């Protein structure tokens, strides 16, 4: 109602447009999209009869990272792709901020959501900088401006600008993933979908990329839905971890701490490796008087921080 009235005013008194517009924008910020994603009894049956997702319900809070983990084929990718309508649900609803995505124009919806895949999926015939600038240019940003922004995004994801005019195939896998992340961020989306984005790089690079993503997220506060096979990666990145069992049912959902401390059942226990010796840590006194942390196999996992010892000494002993 308010914006309609304002719209009329704007048309009648054109010179008032800028201040009015900014006033409306300010006003809107009160109920600015928070990018909460909600699945309501969603089912996906593929034409060949495969039921990939069956009566699935979950809320993914805004500005948080929700990580989906589970064995292969349990429907994680399908769930992710129903958010940007790369897959359409057969039953149920997927809502973003309360609006059913089925009512949104597919193309516009996808441009408003960042998507990073395992193989980066960069356009092989375009330079790195143009890959990053793809979505803004589709959205009508002038090319020069989009390229300039793309260079800044390269800085942001930790890529040297000298790589901007390479083709994707001239980058290492880890570098390509960074470009993929930069491209997904280019239109400043509220939602970021990441499907095993670091699955194809070696463990050291992966750790690097995870740390980088953590830093970016603390800065940007996007709603991130992240799919992985790697429970360590899930715990490293998640605000909420959702563990699937076979058949796409949720085995447990919670913060990493909740899940580690209270695995719901044996399946979760095995899945997170809680039964493994490396997860069972205890304190031991070292010969020199310091306190060390030792895992179930007796391997030294680290030392107890001095501060932690003095403040929480009672609790752990």
């Amino acid at each position, binding site marked *: 109602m308010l914006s309609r009235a304002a719209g009329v005013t704007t048309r009648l008194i054109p010179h008032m447009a800028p201040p009015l517009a900014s006033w409306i924008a300010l006003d809107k910020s009160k109920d600015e999209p928070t990018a909460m994603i909600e699945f309501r009894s969603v089912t996906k049956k593929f034409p060949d009869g495969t039921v990939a997702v069956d009566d699935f319900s979950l809320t993914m809070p805004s500005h948080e990272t929700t990580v989906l983990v589970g064995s292969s084929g349990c429907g994680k990718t399908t769930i992710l792709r129903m958010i940007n309508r790369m897959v359409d649900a057969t039953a149920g609803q997927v809502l973003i901020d309360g609006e059913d995505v089925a009512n949104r124009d597919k*193309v516009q919806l996808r441009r408003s959501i960042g998507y990073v895949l395992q193989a980066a999926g960069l356009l092989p*015939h375009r330079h790195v900088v143009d890959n990053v600038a793809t979505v803004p240019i589709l959205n009508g940003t002038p090319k020069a401006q989009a390229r300039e922004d793309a260079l800044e995004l390269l800085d942001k994801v*930790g890529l040297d600008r000298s790589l901007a005019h390479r*083709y994707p195939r001239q980058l290492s896998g880890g570098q390509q993933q960074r470009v993929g992340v930069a491209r997904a961020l280019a239109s400043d989306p509220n939602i970021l979908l990441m499907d095993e984005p670091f699955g194809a790089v070696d463990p050291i690079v992966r750790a690097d990329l995870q740390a980088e993503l953590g830093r970016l997220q603390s800065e940007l506060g996007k709603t991130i839905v992240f799919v992985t096979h790697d429970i360590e990666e899930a715990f490293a990145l998640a605000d909420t971890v959702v563990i699937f069992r076979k058949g796409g049912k949720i085995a447990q959902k919670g913060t990493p701490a909740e899940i580690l401390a209270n695995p719901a059942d044996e399946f979760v226990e095995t899945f997170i490796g809680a039964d493994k010796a490396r997860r069972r840590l205890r304190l031991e006194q070292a010969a020199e008087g310091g306190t060390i942390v030792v895992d179930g196999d007796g391997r030294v996992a680290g030392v107890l921080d001095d501060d932690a010892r003095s403040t929480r000494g009672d609790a752990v002993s």
Partner: protein
Amino acid sequence: MNFLLDALAYIFDPANWAANATSPAPLGDRILEHLEYTAIAAGAATLIALPLGFYIGHTGKGRQAVIGVTGAMRALPALGVLYFVTMVAGYQLPFLVAATVGSLIALTLLAIPSVLAGAYSGLESVDRQTIDAARANGMTEMQILLRVEIPLSLPLIIGGIRAAVLQVVATATIASFAGLGGLGRVIASGIGLNDFTVLLAGALLVTALALLLDAVFALIQKVTAVRLEADDTPVAEEASAAAGAAASGRGSE
């Protein structure tokens, strides 16, 4: 060897290029006719087959049907098609026009399968992941086609047109038996006059024309492929990424 020298002498004799030269000269006119037929038939085939090939390659629809039909079309004897179409056209049109129109229709029909195959197999060769990512980024189907699929399969698309052009150049030669002009006329009159020199000169000219056109298309293909081919610029593995990451303050973790 004498035949060859005679033929070359015939080709390079300015008298055979002069405007008032006797049939089958002037050679320049025959070459231009030949090029004209090739351009019309290959052009028409491209106009018809490219959109169809793009549609099939992009959607995957109708692939089986088209493979069957084009396969059958390829197996058709060129001369048979020529005479058949020319005769059919002859019923509707005055004799002189019928030969030209009929031949051009036949040449177009014969050129379609190559262009079609190049277009749809080209599009099919594009990495599915790349297309999926483009779609997920919010490209419309038309943008995917124009900005991703066609640029990435351009060498194969042009390869199809190249094959079609060569086929038209060759088939247009025999089309002179159905009344078409072009370099086939030189060969035909060589046969008719029992003059091997003229016959061989015509054959040489056709061959040279085919090789020249082929070279032009090879060049275009190469130019379009250059961007898509692996490049040997050394990749400093993770070094620069790590350096960039360090510079952007990873110390905060």
